[in-house]
């Protein structure tokens, strides 16, 4: 009962032009007899999911398939809510404004995207010059459905990402986007969902532009939040008492910051987690911490803080170009062995967390990265939840995304085999109720594909 002929045609086209193609759109699709992992409720070993007009119309066991629905035989397949990358640059083309190429990012967990050569910023002489501040930039205005990494993401079963602009210390306003659409605006589900903060370290601390050090970055972030408080207070007082007061100046940067429903703070190592938990509390804004590779030392503290956590899927490894004579210290070795166990420990402790791609852009690597966490102790169900409902809830989109429930956006992924197993393939991806053919070629290891091997992305991961 597959509408196989359409798929075959699509495959041919997809193979030739490598652009995601979308099947002809039926108004309703019924997925029958599939193993349905709803995430929010019980698994249905043989269930039906009915999609109509971009939404999940019905999910259950004994559901009548309407006459107008196209039917997909799901036997032998598993349906999950579409996976969500909880901190991403997917959808923002590399031609969009990026961090200045001559300013190395020493920032800890960053999401590296190809840097485009742009004019360096004028030299900042202090916080007043608002260095590297793009708090007003909107991912929603930058995303493009033809961005090159989207197809690979879909091939890995991702339908959605919390995408953030990628330059500066205050990176701008992120958006929850669907990884498909005709125009950028079709992709946006919720925006703004937050403000990502990245610490950018300059060379050595001598000369150049403020800030160069980690403490300079922290001081700057702290100052901008003080400025925001003052700005709000000034506006309030002025509105109440315009006579005798000078009018507060409109401030583009602070308006962007004011609009951020939450901030994302980088914290990879244990002391960075301590630092950012107390910094976030000091700033008195809702916050999320991201990175978390050494969180195995701070599970209790994270639980106690009650702060949502984003775990990078770029597991730490020995640097590729390391001096062979150089020995790694105990802590580095421990981090390389223990980091993949973090998700399991967070799940066990009941800390709300989600995964993010952190520059892992190809489908085979994404699958392996999640598998590594499963092998290190997280249950598949918890891993799936982290990749779906948790991610949606962290950004306040749990009412429309992240589970297979009546009324939610019809973002689904169907696999043959359980998700993230070596032999498993992604067979169907639905975004806003439309089917996308996940590229089988992109699901293979880069070396086994019919295309030149891509260079590894080397994220500059300095001290944060």
């Amino acid at each position, binding site marked *: 009962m597959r509408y196989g002929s359409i798929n075959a045609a699509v495959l041919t086209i997809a193979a030739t032009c490598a652009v995601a193609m979308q099947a002809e759109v039926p108004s309703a699709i019924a997925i029958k007899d599939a193993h349905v992992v709803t995430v929010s409720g019980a698994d249905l070993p043989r269930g039906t999911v009915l999609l109509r007009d971009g939404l999940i119309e019905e999910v259950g066991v004994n559901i009548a398939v309407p006459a107008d629905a196209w039917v997909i035989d799901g036997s032998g397949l598993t349906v999950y809510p579409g996976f969500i990358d909880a901190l991403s640059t997917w959808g923002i083309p590399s031609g969009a404004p990026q961090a200045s190429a*001559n300013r190395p990012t020493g920032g800890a967990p960053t999401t590296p995207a190809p840097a485009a050569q742009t004019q360096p910023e004028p*030299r*900042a*002489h*202090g*916080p007043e010059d608002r260095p590297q501040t793009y708090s007003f930039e909107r991912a929603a205005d930058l995303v493009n459905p033809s961005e090159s990494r989207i197809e690979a993401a879909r091939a890995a079963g991702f339908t959605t990402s919390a995408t953030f602009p990628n330059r500066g210390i205050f990176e701008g306003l992120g958006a929850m986007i669907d990884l498909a659409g005709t125009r950028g605006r079709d992709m946006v589900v919720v925006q703004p969902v937050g403000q990502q903060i990245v*610490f950018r370290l*300059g*060379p*050595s*601390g*001598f*000369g*150049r*532009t*403020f*800030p*160069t*050090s*980690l*403490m*300079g*970055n*922290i*001081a*700057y972030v702290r*100052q901008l939040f*003080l*400025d925001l*408080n*003052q700005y709000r*207070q*000034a506006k309030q*007082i002025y509105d*109440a008492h315009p006579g005798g*007061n000078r009018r*507060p100046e409109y401030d583009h940067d602070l308006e962007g910051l004011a609009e951020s429903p939450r901030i994302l703070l980088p914290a990879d190592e*244990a*002391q960075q987690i*301590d*630092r950012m938990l107390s*910094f976030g509390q000091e700033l008195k804004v809702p916050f999320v911490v991201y990175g978390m590779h050494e969180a*195995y*030392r*701070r*599970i*209790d503290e994270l639980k106690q803080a009650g702060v949502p956590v984003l775990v990078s899927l770029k597991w730490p*490894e020995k640097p590729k170009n390391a001096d*062979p004579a*150089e*020995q790694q*210290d*105990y*802590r580095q*070795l421990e981090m*390389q*062995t223990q980091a993949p166990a973090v998700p399991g*420990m967070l799940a066990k402790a009941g800390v709300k967390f989600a995964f993010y791609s952190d520059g892992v852009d190809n489908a085979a690597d994404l699958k392996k990265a999640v598998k590594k966490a499963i092998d290190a102790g997280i249950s598949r169900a918890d891993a799936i939840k982290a990749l779906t409902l948790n991610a949606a809830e962290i950004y306040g989109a749990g009412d429309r995304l992240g589970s297979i429930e009546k009324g939610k956006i019809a973002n689904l992924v169907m696999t043959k085999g359980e998700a993230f197993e070596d032999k498993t393939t992604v067979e169907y991806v639905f975004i806003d109720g439309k089917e996308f053919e996940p590229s089988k070629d992109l699901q293979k290891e880069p070396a086994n594909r019919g295309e030149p091997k891509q260079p590894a992305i080397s994220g500059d991961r*300095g*001290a944060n």
Partner: protein
Amino acid sequence: MRRLAAFSLIAVATALAASSQSILIRNATVLTVTKGSIQNGSVLIENGKIAAIGKNVSAPADATVVDATGRYLMPGIIDCHSHTAIEGGINEGSVSDSSMVNIKDVINPYDINIYRALAGGLTVSNVLHGSANAIGGQTVVIKLRWGKTAQEMLFDGAKPGIKFALGENPKRQGYPQESFFTQGQVVERRYPGTRMGVEEVIRESFTEAKNYQAEWKDYENRVERGEHPIPPRKDLRLDPLVEVLEGKRYVHAHCYRADEILMLLRVANEMGFKIRTLQHVLEGYKVAKEIAAHGAGASTFSDWWSYKIEAYDATPYNAAIMARKGVVVSLNSDSDELQRHLNLEAAKVMRYGGLSETEALAMVTINPAKQLGIDETVGSIEVGKSADLVLFDKHPLDNFSKVEKVWIDGHQYFDREKDLETRPAFEQKKKALEEKLKPAAQRPARGQGGSNPTAEAIQ
């Protein structure tokens, strides 16, 4: 409490500041520094404090007894000038006045140099911003509670400081440079380029700070009068300078030449604040009287100079001369290496300047404590003070002496024997991790570089 029970770092990290257990250190030569020495003396530690000192000290039956026969017990060593345990750069050198940055924000409690310093008897460090700019960042005093978090290492009650720097380092930024630091690019100059400019930066910043202070006072007055003024902008750069003016924050000023030392004292007098310590202060011997008159302390090197032009006119008698002229003098490390043997630095002032043993030891204990305003609780072995103690196998001023045990607040943070004992097990654990990672990195390890003895090693 934390997950991996196997990693005993955790065991240290969860125990809180003071150990409630009683410890009796018996039969040592107790070098109290402030109250003379006691042969065959004992020290009783209770609740993290020194409870009794003397020849005959009675201890509760359940006290842990440390037999220190033939050993020497001295107060924990204090370093008034350190850059250890700072993460992400010790300088915010991009601006002439970086007083908005704070070392407290970036303490890295996992820095192995903390543990290595402990192994040399160091218990307290004044962690300073670098000297790239005339007014550097805010500084913090820590206790080397290895295994604890950054927050738990802070010296409770120690007054915060701010770093100043005079001379070559801050003015070097004024040269257009193409160097290692700038990755081959010629970068725009940063003011100042002269010693005059350094002076001007300090005067300018404090002028601004006074205006800022006045602006806030004016605002508060207007609020009190029932008006509705818009508050001034809170400025993280000027706040600490106002604290300096109000005596709530110490100034630690890096300096070398006599003329610039006098310049700084004049500017401080003019602006109405005090210099708490002059750091390095190699030409201090020339202006010791003026330093003493201002009430500034001097924290210098024992015998290190000639590493740059402004450090040539120096003498190892500097510390002794300043001390004799009434200046409170300490010897500092400014180095991850030197901080491990400050006791030997102290010994040098006996050779150069003929100071007594006690005067020498004071320069790495009670004197830096006085300079940091923490001499009420640390810096000597006195009843009621924190039990920050170091047990040496020989006299600490002996070149061949080694640290055997170190206590901070009565909690033992270093034990030489245990460290050596646990090294093989630690190596095993490390090997096991390496084995686990083998498929990822197949190449055989070359060289036998020393591994880092971490807290795992001492537990």
